[in-house]
């Protein structure tokens, strides 16, 4: 497909929600009728298969494709729940040096012909795994949480993406807790956007349903829960729709300030 889009989901820091974001955004795009391929580029520590609930169906993986042990098609696992959604799993028993950026580009060029979207789940860190993941991508989703360490790493990643010629980088703020923001104990989405200075694509509230969904291996995009709705909005924004942010900087309103006095005292 000529106008297919290749998106890398990255963060620098581990554990901020790259894999969950990849799973939900990919599933959301497939639910809109798009042909989507998810690639787990975290060689040696694969997880996207588990979050997607497809771990029992792996036969071949990315490294097999790169080494020519199988055809691209053989390594793609079809998600039976969502027509048009496929996963290329990573290898669990190899390390990052098994794949080079050039080889990744080749695999992606092949997938572009068959898919509307190719989503790459990037490993944590800034070493070869990161270089592999970004090599063939057109745009990046940078995932962070409202914590000093995650934001610092996101800033480093944004710098590296810029140095690699990326023009489109969008920010996803994960695990935001509005109750803590209101109390002045967590940076707001506006604070994070102000510091990182890249366009905001979505805010995902901290939601226990994400843990439940991961337990079950079933992405929750589109479900009637805060995170499910947030991911659905992110998907719409990726499609180019204008979706307003409900309460981007509902920072400390007069009323919370007044009631806050009584809570604190």
């Amino acid at each position, binding site marked *: 497909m000529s106008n297919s889009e290749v998106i890398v989901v990255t963060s620098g820091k581990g554990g901020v929600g790259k894999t969950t974001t990849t799973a939900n955004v990919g599933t959301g795009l497939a639910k809109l009728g798009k042909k989507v391929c998810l690639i787990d580029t975290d060689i040696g520590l694969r997880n996207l298969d588990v979050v997607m609930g497809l771990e029992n169906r792996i036969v071949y993986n990315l490294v097999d494709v790169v080494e020519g042990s199988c055809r691209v098609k053989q390594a793609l696992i079809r998600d039976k729940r969502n027509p048009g959604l496929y996963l290329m799993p990573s290898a669990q028993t190899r390390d990052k040096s098994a794949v080079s950026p050039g080889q990744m580009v080749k695999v992606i060029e092949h997938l572009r012909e068959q898919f509307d979207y190719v989503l790459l789940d990037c490993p944590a860190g800034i070493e070869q795994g990161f270089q592999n993941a970004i090599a063939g991508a057109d745009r990046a989703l940078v995932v962070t949480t409202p914590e000093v360490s995650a934001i610092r790493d996101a*800033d480093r990643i944004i710098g590296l993406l810029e140095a690699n010629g990326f023009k489109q980088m969008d920010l996803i703020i994960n695990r935001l807790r509005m109750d803590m923001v209101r109390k002045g104990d967590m940076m707001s989405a506006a*604070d994070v956007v102000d*510091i990182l*200075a890249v366009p905001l694509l979505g805010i995902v509230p901290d939601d226990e349903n994400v843990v439940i969904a991961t337990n079950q291996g079933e992405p929750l995009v589109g479900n009637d829960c805060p995170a499910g709705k947030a991911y659905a909005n992110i998907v719409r924004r990726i499609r180019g729709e204008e979706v307003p942010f409900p309460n981007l900087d509902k920072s400390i309103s007069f009323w919370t300030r007044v009631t806050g*006095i009584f809570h*604190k005292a």
Partner: protein
Amino acid sequence: MRHFFRRKSSRETARDRLKILLISDRVNCSPEMIELIKTDIAKVISKYMKIDAANMEIQINAKGKGARGIKNPTLYANIPILDLHK
């Protein structure tokens, strides 16, 4: 009663720490190095005029607002002059 005797909230502390951290991260030099640059600049300028070295400020910024996309950061020095002719 924090709202009356406002101590810095942890949100503000985080924001302030990050801003300082990212300045040195982005230009890839430590706060100590910025301090060294500052003393050296003061030394050189002092050869020609009398300056208030204690109150000089030095900062490395990415130029302008919306810093992204501009590759070269800029060094700003704000040096109060006490006497132009030494």
